């Protein structure tokens, strides 16, 4: 794989005594969509949260191994976590807009990053909403509360909010699982478009969604990375029987 954005070497994660991730090694290519699939409790979300050090917030967690983003080990003790999280945006399963106006939701991040100029903020708001394919729907109601939007709109607003701080990497944890099919397809199409500029890693329970949206797919099972490859290969001729059993629904 060329242009590796994230290199993972023997990464293990423990919740107290329980080993939730077992010596994961993988390479995540830049400007591609990588899907993480696997049954509940397989470690895919835990792994995703390792990428922006979200698991640091859990007291009993211990992590070994390396996770390099553009060659820098983000678990090195000299690394500034805030800087990492600036570069790595995250979108969650449940949309979580701030209880503020649409405009303020987007402008919040750039503003705390020091941008005060109104014209510049206006530009960022417009560009971010356009990139999230929601500008046309919202341009005339930027002052309205974000909480009044539909679920699908709120989720795209959250994606726009993530884009506003110019991350390199976007992590998505089940971004469409609470949405109806139309909103889901809008999010999926958006993911497809965003990969030109961002490296996207998406966790999904929905295998069809992984197939439709991703370039590479990684299959996790019981804390192990069983197989990773091009999505086309994983869904047409996976190497491992466990992968085949999972994607064909013959698991266990």
């Amino acid at each position, binding site marked *: 794989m060329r242009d590796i954005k994230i290199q993972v070497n023997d990464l293990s994660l423990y919740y107290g005594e329980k080993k939730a991730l077992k010596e994961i090694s993988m390479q995540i290519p830049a400007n591609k969509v990588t899907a993480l699939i696997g049954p509940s409790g397989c470690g895919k979300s835990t792994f995703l949260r390792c990428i922006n050090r979200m698991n640091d917030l859990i007291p009993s967690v211990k992590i070994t191994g390396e996770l390099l983003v553009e060659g820098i080990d983000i678990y090195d003790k000299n690394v500034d976590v805030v800087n990492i999280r600036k570069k790595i945006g995250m979108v969650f399963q449940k949309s979580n807009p701030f209880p503020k106006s649409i405009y303020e939701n987007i402008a919040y991040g750039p503003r705390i990053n020091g941008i005060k100029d109104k014209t510049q903020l206006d530009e960022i708001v417009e560009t971010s909403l356009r990139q999230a394919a929601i500008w046309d729907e919202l341009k005339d109601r930027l002052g309205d509360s974000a909480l009044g939007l539909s679920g699908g709109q709120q989720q795209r607003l959250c994606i726009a909010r993530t884009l506003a701080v110019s991350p390199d990497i976007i992590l998505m944890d089940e971004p469409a699982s609470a949405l109806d099919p139309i909103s889901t397809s809008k999010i999926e199409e958006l993911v*497809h478009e965003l990969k030109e500029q961002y490296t996207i890693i998406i966790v999904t329970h929905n295998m*069809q969604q992984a*197939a*439709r949206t991703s370039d590479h797919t990684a299959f996790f099972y019981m804390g192990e990375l069983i197989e990773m490859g091009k*999505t*086309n290969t994983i869904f*047409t001729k996976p190497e491992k029987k466990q992968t085949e059993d999972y994607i064909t629904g013959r698991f266990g």
Partner: protein
Amino acid sequence: MTHFEIELEKLNNVIVKIGSLAESQVSESVKALLSEPIEGKEVKKIENKIDKLDVKIDEICQSIFALQQPVASDLRFIMGALQISNEIERIGDLAVSIIKRAKNIKDKHDLVSKFEIADLGRQVELITAKTNSYFLTRDEHTFAEIFSLNAAIKNKSEEAIQGIISEMKSHSKTVLSGTNLVIVIKHLERISDHCSNIAEHVYFIVYAKIIKHENPNTES
């Protein structure tokens, strides 16, 4: 356009391309039969192109099935595309076979003119062109034309074959050429059958109705 629609468009374009290659291959085969032998190299080149596109269509369809889970008209289009490319690949092979066999028909011009093979050849060229056009336009009138052409081709082929058999019975020296010509005529007839099969697949794509065993004029 969503990226899935772009994939479908790509598949559509490959089918149009393979269809037009087969059409020119059929024209070459009719030319080989009616006038002069055709250069084998060029024929081989087109045959290779058709085979490659046939494989490409299989790959695109496999990928769409696996990754996009097509439904409704999209599902029918992919199913139809797989079958259509199969038929087209067979048309290409039959055309090549005609070109090769035409070289071995002595007294070709006499036999061709005596049994009005030129008309038959032109009708087969026409049905191939109409089939490509039906794929593009989905025009009902063209659909009907394909089936009446196929029926006419069958009748004409049968007549010609009966005539050639009588000729061979009375003039034994024509047996070798006559047999080759009968095989060529059967190939032309088969090309016409593949065209009407393609029309049935397109009909399925458009109307979601399987009609492949409903038409008495089709063999398969």
